[in-house]
């Protein structure tokens, strides 16, 4: 279903490093418009680093990153959200001493249209009614699940075209994880492209169209999600069989 669509985000042979320690060793991947693509892999495979490199928090050493046909390697991290590329990082990173409402407002920091921001805040509260109850509470006092909801809510406040999600299931109860994945699919159905990084490969692949498998900083496999799910090697390595 995705072959014919245009490529919205592309990494070409990207290498990046923390100081002298190479974290990504030449990664290439493509995300088409409207897809959910997941990146799976073990701890330390470079999944989170991939997202951080796309957002230029970790600098690219070699290779090119294209977003909507434009090379974005050298753009400042703070410019990308204004172009519709938005990340929910690992560990959620809620602003602990801002209230829930303020956290959401920060998601729309660069936007000037007050009315639109208000609408989007309503939309976020509709997605996550729990947040409405807690809107005056400080972000740091929320439970893990609520924080994840807030992080996603904050991200959609920027009206992203591409949403990068890092480990949305981390540390959450299975029921809440189910709920969050449902919402991710719903956001996707409203036209937001999603690049998902997950430890929980089963869940991630079930929700996505295509998947990439990362091992120690390199892509070792890429295929349709259903194909990966039925691949015996993958099942052995990542799905616990």
């Amino acid at each position, binding site marked *: 279903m995705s072959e014919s669509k245009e490529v919205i985000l592309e990494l070409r042979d990207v290498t990046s490093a923390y100081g002298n320690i190479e974290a990504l060793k030449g990664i290439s991947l493509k995300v088409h418009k409207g897809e959910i693509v997941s990146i799976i892999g073990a701890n330390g495979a470079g999944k989170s680093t991939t997202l951080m490199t796309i957002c230029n928090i970790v600098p690219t050493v070699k290779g090119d990153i294209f977003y909507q046909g434009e090379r974005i390697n050298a753009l400042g991290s703070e410019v990308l959200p204004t172009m519709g590329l938005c990340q929910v990082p690992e560990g959620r990173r809620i602003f*602990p001493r801002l209230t829930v409402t303020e956290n959401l407002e920060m998601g729309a*920091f660069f936007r000037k249209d007050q009315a639109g921001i208000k609408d989007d805040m309503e939309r976020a509260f509709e997605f996550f009614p729990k947040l409405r109850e807690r809107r005056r509470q400080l972000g740091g006092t929320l439970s893990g699940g609520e924080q994840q909801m807030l992080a996603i809510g904050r991200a959609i406040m920027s009206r992203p075209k591409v949403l990068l999600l890092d480990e949305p299931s981390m540390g959450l109860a299975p029921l809440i994880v189910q709920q969050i994945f449902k919402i991710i699919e719903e956001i996707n159905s409203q036209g937001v492209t999603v690049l998902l990084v997950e430890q929980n490969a089963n869940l991630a692949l079930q929700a996505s169209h295509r998947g990439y498998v990362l091992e120690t900083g390199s892509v070792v496999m890429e295929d349709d999600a259903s194909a990966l799910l039925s691949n015996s090697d993958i099942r052995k390595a990542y799905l616990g069989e």
Partner: protein
Amino acid sequence: MDYFLQQLVNGITLGGVYALIALGYTMVYGIIQLINFAHGEFFAAGGYMGVIIISYLSAQGMSPVLCIALGLGLTMGYCALLAMAVEKVAYKPLRSSSRLSVLLSALGMSIFLQNGLMLTQGVYDKAYPTEMTAGGFHFGNVVVSYMQIYIVLITAALLICLNLLVFKTRIGKAMRATAQDKVMSALVGINSNKIISLTFAIGAGLAAAAGIMVGFYYGSVNYSMGFVPGIKAFAAAVLGGIGNITGAMVGGLIIGMVEIFAAGYLSSEYKDVFAFIILIAVLYFRPTGIMGENVDDTRV
């Protein structure tokens, strides 16, 4: 009793000044975890720029109130520019270095600015046109000078403006967000460099206002005047819980009060000793200050 009330008035005045300086320390610390040793110099530069501008304006025949208002505004703007320049040159390139390197850089800037002031303005005290604000109210034996009223009013106004800015506006929220998590605030589109620059500007502006008020209060300014109020304001910021804006205000008031009351009732030679002993005692029982949260656990 009269004596007590008089000391109370003096304590509030001095405390307000300390609070203004302490805010700069606490805001800068909150956002980049730096003890900005050059902050006391912004205060001194404010004191000088105030007397320069106000003397000029009054020589042009402007009315005293207008002189002070305009002088205050221009001086705050000047010190804001100065602070932004210092930040750009001495701190920004060291964002990713160890904190001690930045601390040393700040120390170097402090020495540099202090001597720059000395070279351009001379080593002698510069007198303030205190006749502008001479006089005061007498309540029995308690004297409240017009200057003290000015100081308290201006301080209160500045503190209220700052609170509104930090807690109500979009920029203020971005400042707090940047202080809490720089990576995440970049990911939502906040340009942290601009916010940090702004923080320096605001802090220095407040210190500059304090400089002018101290100039009027004591009647003169000196190139080395930044140091002692600087460390006391820093102590006030820590006392209140460094990084916490309300804490800095409370801490400033406490340090000012302790100093005045210790000088009045115990010993004027040892007044600073008491201020530091209070600080140490409070930190001994509450290691993160009065209002500080236990969030900063980073080491040298």
